[in-house]
């Protein structure tokens, strides 16, 4: 299934709550202020970064919406390697292939 998260990991528990229950077969798409959760800040090793890395290793797919990254000045090079950038068509494709969609907000 597809999970979407639209709140920043730095002032909201939505991403953490999502990561606590996702399965290896799931896809997680970060949109709107949710894209800040995909920033790679290895020095401080925040909880959500560790979780994304672990879940990614076990098969969960992670995506960010391109338009939301560009709007907020987040370069693709600043994102976690585990995260794939998708455009609006990619968002639609993820939604279409998903058995169900859970929005975390």
């Amino acid at each position, binding site marked *: 299934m597809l999970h979407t998260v639209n709140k920043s990991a*730095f*002032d909201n528990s939505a991403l953490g709550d999502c990561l606590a229950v996702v399965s290896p077969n799931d896809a997680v798409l970060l949109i*709107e202020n949710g894209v800040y959760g995909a920033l790679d*800040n290895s*020095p*401080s090793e925040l909880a959500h970064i560790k979780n994304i890395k672990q879940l990614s290793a076990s098969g969960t797919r992670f995506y960010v919406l391109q338009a939301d990254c560009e*709007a*907020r*000045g987040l370069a693709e090079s600043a994102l976690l390697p585990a995260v794939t950038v998708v455009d609006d068509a990619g968002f639609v494709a993820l939604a279409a292939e998903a058995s169900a969609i859970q929005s975390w907000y």
Partner: protein
Amino acid sequence: MDKPSTNESTENESTDKPEDKDILLVFRHAPYGNALAREGLEAALACGAMGAKTSVLYINEGVWQLLEPQNSSAIDCKNQAAMASALPLYDVDAIWVDEDSLKQRNLTGADINAGKIINHTHVQTLLASSKRILSF
């Protein structure tokens, strides 16, 4: 109602002189996702244009507003960074950025486009010494 007229004239005089007023605007939210950042900047520019001694403080999620380049046309929004670059033109030169908020987000001075980074103690002093604060 029963006030002496001298008091009234003093009050009127003070409201007519915005340059006597100093005001701090606190930006605590990310640039997009809601209207707070845009409204805060509009208020800051208005304060500056009115001649008030205006300072702004970027703290917590507000520091995201300072990342560039922002291609906000991708989400059909007005460019916040471009708007913020107008602050000095409106005599808003006191632009402060909270160091702890940057660190928590693994950002450094090299990542942000404006403002002077101040530590926790300076932020406390700034807030404590401001008589008028608007929060966005």
